[in-house]
């Protein structure tokens, strides 16, 4: 299955999670999304918000990989 990508390095809170959340809403369960985050707020909050929403999350460097639940 093709992995979707999203670059939110130019965004600030809460648009970082809003944009990621809307992208996830358009995906099918089990589909993966790789989100490129800026250091700091986005890299701290996006994985936390995604996990709180019940998605599977893995962080490697600036990339947050989220598998839609």
């Amino acid at each position, binding site marked *: 299955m093709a992995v979707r990508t*999203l670059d939110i390095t130019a965004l600030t809170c809460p648009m970082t*999670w809003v*944009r990621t959340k*809307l992208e996830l*809403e358009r995906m099918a369960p089990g589909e993966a999304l790789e989100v490129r985050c800026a250091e700091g707020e986005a890299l701290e909050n996006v994985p936390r918000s995604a996990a709180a929403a019940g998605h599977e999350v893995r962080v490697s460097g600036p990339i947050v990989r989220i598998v839609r639940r």
Partner: protein
Amino acid sequence: MSSDRRAFFRTLASAARDVAQPAAPDVEAPDAVGPWLDRYSRQLVLPEWSEAAQRTLAAASVLVVGAGALGSPVATYLAGAGVGRLGIVDDGDVELSNLHRQHLHFTPDLGVPKARSAVAKLAYLNPEIVIEPYQAAFGAAMVEGHDLVVDCTDSFTARYAVNAACCAARVPLVEAGVVGMSGLVMAIRPGETACYRCAFPAPPADAASCAEAGVLGPAAGVVGSLQALEALKLLAGLPALTDAFLQVDLAGLDFLRVAVRRRPQCPDCSAA
């Protein structure tokens, strides 16, 4: 119209034009964060809300009956939330005694029809939606074609008329009333859940309107805000205050949810 008031509306109208944005959502562009996304971001971010809910709201048509103490918060929140088409019904003019609780009307609006005064502010708040004034008394035919009606009238007679019209047309409805320091709110899906007449088959003998009994502005604001909340829930398909009403006592700060059942013999909804 005094020149002060003309200037006031001129300023308001030109300011609304200045902030007008293209209505087309640009969320399709992968990395763009447009005004649409920005305007609704604080509700889109909620786990309970979604792009689908936002689009449902944008496609919805809602009739707000009454542009007074309840209609002010209701219309303000529905316009702000992005309901695509709002109709505002009121056949009265703005009076000095309205201003303490009807926050869509300002002192320069005295004497202006309330429907028009309300629409001027709402267009300023959200120029991306369509808002239509109905400067007339409520008529049953008005509910046709709407996805939801919010009853912000101030008497049992008027509320029964709106309830009966919504039941006949099977249009979902949010009822509310406020007097003094207390009020109630009720969400209704005609034909599925208890209607206002099921909950209150006859008006209480000592029913007073807020014109006689008075009301504190924030008390009406709380009840109207709850009404707007229930309207958004009904539109988005979220669980709402149906088959029950919420009794709100703002003196003691007590909220009581009272269960209500449909009445098989209800003159308003039994045929719905």
